[in-house]
C-alpha cells in the first residue's frame, strides 16, 4: 500500500470538514482546526487499477486566502480538493484565488473542484472554464445527504496514482 498526502481547502463554512466526516476511517477531534489550524484524517481506497492507497487528508481551516502557516501545511501534497459552496457565490471567488496560491506554493498537482451543498439552491455561477480545465474533475456534492462525496475522494485518488 502506498500513502499519499492530500489537502482539502476552501472558504469558511463551505462544508470541508463535513465532507471528510462523511467519508473517513479515522479522525481527530475538530478542536484541532481552531487550535493548530489543521485536522488530520485517513482513508484507505483501491483504485480502478487495483492499487491500494491510503489518503492522509489534511483538513485545513477555512479561509479565503492562504496564510504562511497554512501554506506550510500544503507542502508535500500530492493533490487537493478545492471546495466552494454553491449557495454562496463569494466562496467560488475564494476557491479560484486559493487555487492560484496553491500553485504558487507547490506547483501544479491534481485537484478536484467540488461545489458542495448541492441540496441547497444554487446561487453561485458555474466556475470559469479556465479553473475547470485545470482541475482533474469537477463534481457537485452534498455532505448532508452524502451525495457524490465518495466520488470526490475516489477521483482524486485515481488522479494522484496516475501521477
Amino acid at each position, binding site marked *: 500500500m502506498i500513502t499519499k498526502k492530500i489537502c482539502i481547502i476552501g472558504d469558511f463554512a463551505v462544508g470541508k470538514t463535513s465532507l471528510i466526516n462523511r467519508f473517513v*476511517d479515522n479522525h481527530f477531534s475538530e478542536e484541532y482546526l481552531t487550535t493548530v489550524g*489543521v485536522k488530520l484524517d485517513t482513508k484507505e481506497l483501491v483504485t480502478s487499477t487495483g492499487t491500494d492507497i491510503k489518503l*492522509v487528508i489534511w483538513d485545513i481551516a477555512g479561509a479565503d486566502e492562504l496564510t*504562511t502557516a497554512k501554506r*506550510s*501545511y500544503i*507542502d508535500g501534497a500530492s493533490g487537493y480538493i478545492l471546495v466552494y459552496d454553491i449557495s454562496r457565490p463569494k466562496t467560488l471567488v475564494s476557491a479560484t484565488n486559493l487555487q492560484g496560491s496553491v500553485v504558487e506554493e507547490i506547483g501544479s498537482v491534481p485537484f478536484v473542484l467540488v461545489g458542495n451543498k448541492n441540496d441547497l439552491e444554487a446561487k453561485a455561477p458555474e466556475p470559469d472554464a479556465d479553473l475547470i480545465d485545470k482541475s482533474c474533475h469537477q463534481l457537485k456534492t452534498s455532505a448532508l445527504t452524502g451525495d457524490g462525496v465518495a466520488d470526490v475522494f475516489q477521483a482524486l485518488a485515481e488522479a494522484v496514482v496516475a501521477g
Partner: protein
Amino acid sequence: MKNPDPKTSAALITDSKQQNDSDLETLQKLLVGIDREQAQDVFARVQQLDRRSDDIYEVLVDAVSKLNPDEQSKVMEHLSSVAATSLKTSIRNDPDNVTEIVYPIMLPAIRQAVADSMRSALERIDNMFKSKLSPQSIKWRIEAQRSGVSYAEVLLRNTMHYGVEQAFLIDKKSGLLMQHVSALSGSQKDEDAVSAMFLAIERFVKDSFSEDDDALQRVTIGERLVYLAHGPHALLACVVKGTPPADFLENVQSTLETIHAAEPDTLKEFSGDRDTLASINPVMSELLELDFDEKEEASDGFSDKATIGMQLAAIAGLLLLSYLWFQGMQGKRVDQYMHELNSNQHIQVYNAEKRGGIWELKGIIDPSGATPAGIAHSAFVNEPKVVLQLTPVRFLNAGTADVADSN
C-alpha cells in the same frame, strides 16, 4: 602595328598574376610552410574559446601542481575572497544544499558539545550528592564503585525509569509516515494520522514562535514526552513514558543520522511506499530498547526479592545495633548509680545483676546513716527497672559491719 585589345591584355595580366601568386605560394610553402601552419594553429587556438579553455585548464593544473608553499599561500590569499563570496552567494541561493553538505559534520560536533555540557552538569550533581548520606545512597555508591561509573549516573539511572513506546520516522516535507515501530500491544491511534499531526504541530509551533530555523525538540503530554530529532529529509519522533536521561535526544539524533547515512536517496525521494525503507526498521527497533527499568536492574544482580531481603537485613542489623547500644548505655548508668551509692559511707553495694529486664543491686546499709528509698530517689531519678536490695547492718568502722536486720 595593331594595338593590343585592352580586355585581352587585362586577362593576360590577371592570368600572369594568378600564376605568380601560385608560384609565390608554392615558394612560401617550400621555404616557411611548417612555420606558417603552426602560426595558423596558434591563431585558431587564440580565437576559438573552447580550445583556449582547454589550454588554460592544462596550464592551470600543471601550474598549481608545481606551486611551492610560498606560491601556494599567495594563490590562496588571492582566491580566498573570491571563494568566500562564492560560498555566501551559494548559501543565500540554496541554503538546503549547504545544510545537506555540513549536516554530517556539524551534528556530531554539536552533540559532542552537548555531551560535554551534560558531563559537567553530572559532575556538579555528583559533588552535590556526595555530601548526602542515606542507606539507599550507600547502596548506589557501592554500585557506582563496583561498575566504575560516577555516582550521579547511578543515581539518575535508579531514579529515572522510562520506556520508549513508539518511534515515528516522518517525511519532513509531507508528514507522511516512512517507518513506525511500537512496543505497545493492542489498538492504537492511526499512525499515519499521528505522524502527520506531529509535523503539523512542529510547523505550527515554528510558525508561531520562531523566526529562525529553531526546531521543536520536545513536547510534554501528561506523563509522556515526545522527542523530535531533525534531519535534512526526515524527522524522528519518539514517544517516551517516564523520565529519560539528559542524553536521550542525543541518542535519537544519532539514530536519525545513521538512517540518513544508510538511505539518503530513498529518504529524499520518498513517494509514500513504506516498503522502500524496510531496511531501516531494525535500526528504529533499537530505540525501543533504550530504557532503564526493572529488567536492567535484574541483569545487574539486584532483583526485587534480593533488594527486599537486603532491606530487611539492614533493618534487622540496625535493630540489633540499637539494642546493643541501649544495653550498653543502661549498664553504664547502673555502674554510675552503684558508684554514687558506694560514695555514701553508710552504703555498700557489692553486686549488680539483670533478671527479666530488671537490674537487681545487692548490698548493705547502715540504717543510722541513710534510708534506701531516699538514696535511690536522689541518685537515680525515675528508674523503675532498678531494684535495690540492701541488708541493714550497723557499721562498726570502715570495711566491717554487723548484720542488724534482714530486708
